[in-house]
């Protein structure tokens, strides 16, 4: 299949950036990234600069791949990362726009690669359970209802790719932050620091320049791991508790 790619080329955060057009011959069994590999190999053979993009595991779990394909983070297929998107979902002759995530908190480093360390900094403020190695009691001492463990797991499935932020017209990171809060706050082990964790992470999220949620829901739709808006609702409740609790 023959495709026309319009790829965003930008040399560093201060460059203005522009779309450049490339023709590439792909095959239906290829993944989207393998198609870009083919393009890059051609560019290298022509001694042109290859297109830069983040990628690693190519199994949809590391969260490294991050581009926006035809206006959608990770492309048209739901619950799918770019690396798991295969070319059989495109047609011969298609023109495909490929561009980086666009959000204030995710500055472009080069071409399709953005800086997502803001996520790490949010986690650093409280996205953990404060226990040191070695002091844990037996793992079966605290039973956890299966439904609670499952809800926690639903949220914990987040791969930190940032598609939620990219999809959000407000550049908000509420889905990401709420996923981590739900993962930890729902578990009895994480309950201890629940309100403090909620408060600190949300505070940091705002300082990083992420926007406010207006319940548009594009994040939920574009999330490759199907993280649900219900996590944001629960986060809000915890945030209200942390703001209004009298004895903190």
């Amino acid at each position, binding site marked *: 299949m023959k495709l026309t790619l319009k790829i965003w080329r930008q040399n560093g955060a201060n460059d203005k950036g522009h779309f450049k057009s490339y023709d590439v011959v792909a095959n239906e069994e290829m993944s989207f990234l393998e198609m870009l590999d083919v393009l890059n190999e051609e560019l290298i053979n022509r001694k042109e600069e290859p297109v830069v993009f983040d990628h690693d595991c190519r199994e949809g779990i*590391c*969260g490294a791949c991050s581009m926006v394909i035809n206006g959608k983070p990770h492309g048209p297929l739901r619950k799918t990362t770019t690396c798991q998107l295969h070319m059989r979902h495109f047609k011969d002759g298609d023109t495909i726009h490929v561009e980086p995530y666009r959000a204030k908190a995710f500055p472009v480093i080069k071409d399709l690669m953005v800086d997502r360390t803001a996520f790490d900094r949010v986690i650093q403020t409280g996205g953990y359970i404060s226990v040191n*190695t070695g002091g844990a*009691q037996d*793992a079966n001492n605290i039973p*956890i209802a299966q439904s609670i*463990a499952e809800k926690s797991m639903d949220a*914990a499935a987040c791969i930190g790719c940032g598609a939620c932020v990219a999809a959000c017209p407000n550049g908000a990171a509420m889905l990401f932050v709420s996923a981590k809060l739900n993962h930890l706050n729902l*578990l009895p082990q994480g309950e201890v620091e629940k309100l403090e964790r909620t408060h600190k992470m949300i505070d940091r999220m705002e300082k990083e320049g992420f926007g406010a949620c207006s319940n548009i829901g594009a994040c939920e739709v574009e999330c490759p791991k199907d993280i649900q808006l219900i996590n944001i609702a629960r986060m809000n409740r915890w945030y209200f508790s942390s703001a209004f609790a009298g004895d903190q």
Partner: protein
Amino acid sequence: MEIKWKIGDELKGNVPPGPLDQKWNKYKDKQKLVAPNNKRNVEIIVIGTGLAGGGAAAALGELGYIVKCFTFHDSPRRAHSIAAQGGINAAKNYQNDGDTIYRLFYDTIKGGDYRSRESNVHRLAEASVDIIDHCVATGVPFARDYGGLLENRSFGGVQVKRTFYARGQTGQQLLLATYQSLNRQIAKGTVTMYNRHEMVDLVKIDGEARGVIVRNLLTGKLERYGAHAVVLATGGYGNLYYLSTNAMNSNASAAWKAVKRGAYMANPCYVQIHPTCIPESGEYQSKLTLMSESLRNDGRVWVPWKEDDVQAIRNKSKQPKDIPEDRRDYFLERMYPAFGNLVPRDVAARAIKKVCDEGRGVNATGRAVFLDFEDAIMRYGKSEAHQQGLSNPDKSTIRSLGEKIVEAKYGNLFEMYEKITGVDPYHTPMMIYPAVHYTMGGLWVDYNVQTNIPGLFAIGECNFSDHGANRLGASALMQGLADGFFVIPYTITNYLADKIKVPKADINHPAFEEAEKSTRERFEKLLSIQGNQSIESLHRKLGKIMWNLAGISRTAENLSKAVEEIRALRKEFWEDVYVPGSMDEYNPELEKANRVADFLELGELLATDAFHRNESCGGHYREEFKTEEGEPLRMDDEFAYIAAWEWPNTNEEPILHKEDLNFEVVKPTTRSYK
């Protein structure tokens, strides 16, 4: 071509004395400690942020050391531990099915085909129990039963249920818990994190590891970092084969730089080929995707008996379901009745290769077999219908009930399979084929997980220590966490206790100057070649040599051919590679070139090791050494040792250092899964 090597001094594993099950506790009783006020002056460098590296950095930070942690990723959360699907073993015996620490130890030794050090493996089994407690405390949402207690499943090569799991994303959940603990230390300031920094050389001062040269990948700048000890947790070298289940950026360069500074590489020929991966679909293929071993709990592996059925399936005139039962060969069940589809990975991989070599592979390339869930779907469906009190349910009701159960167990794996292949595995059996997955070999370490270079430690997949010649499923996560959280915090302290008076490393020392200079020259050389071949294409060539000549089954002839071809390719690489861009910028091609150049040396060492080991054991199968039934034949009299290789200089003969394996508790026997 003749492959030559020299024999060097014998190695000692520094295993503490005493009965096996008391060694580790005795070690901890007697080891040297560093007081809290001194820890604040001692620096440690950790390379890598997977389960081992991230765990070590977090645990050492908790202890109060000054930790500098490096990853080439944009975030520590991306390390490839994240991709492990199936689970983590631990001798908790929550299922009351007879599991003990000894049994986990024994299974691991046996699974490793009696090629690992007993003391290390026993310590691993002991730590497994603490790991689960620790993980639950740090918020890993493991699967639970209705009573809220932890659930287990079984895995290949064992007869108890001891595998803890979080859906098909166990590695992800364990890595995230580790990453979170690491972030807690970063926030506290005990760990300084360097993202997008790749280690490009090791710095030794007076024979001890005292620092690293690191390339800031964004700016291309070479930076120097000093410490009292360096911990490598940089994973395995599976990408040597180009196609593997490893992540695209997984590489062996950090470990190989250590080898070039004098560290020994142990048992590089022990490569695990995982039986259940999605088959290759074309030349452009960039990596292979694993389908978790847990699928073999319920999936049945088969190929048709008859040539005409094979042809019909290949040309799609017949669907797999059109082949009647009596014309299917469930070959794992036939060959290994006791363990059936759940035989260890090496055994399953060889069996699959065997039936495909017989011309019974079921896809166009002839390199695929079926993994069929029809029986499991119907079995679960019947049981579910019974539980729901349905009388005489029809077949489609049973099937849809069964599909739901299978979906609950393996839903995400089935989804992944469908995304990649476009085929729905609920109705058409999966096609699978073996692929390189894990490397048991790695840097030689003693009981302290210290390499032969004082102050240089290696943990996780990066070392060779715990899995012998073959790793059991769900044991990689166990080893990574054990080494990182529960072993190195003790053993490195024992080493550092003697270093509290040593001043911080001076990064202006001539050793740093020399290391930075030689690294710069190497990069400049790579950039100056300006040849005609892309790095990717050269890497692909190397992968083909390795897979064809040093893959699932090996012969002395093929291995010597491999060495010859690798040497030729190495020459070709250094004369004709094209690396675009410059050194002082973000240049992923240059990173790749550096890594492939290292693979081109490590590949030769792997083939040499495989050539020298005149026996078949675990992941290393030599066709010359097999029983009459075609099962691998171990040569315990000659090869019950660890082969640790010194690589003095490329184009010089490597030097073999042997460490004898002494089995005090387990008696090596023929590994049988029949």
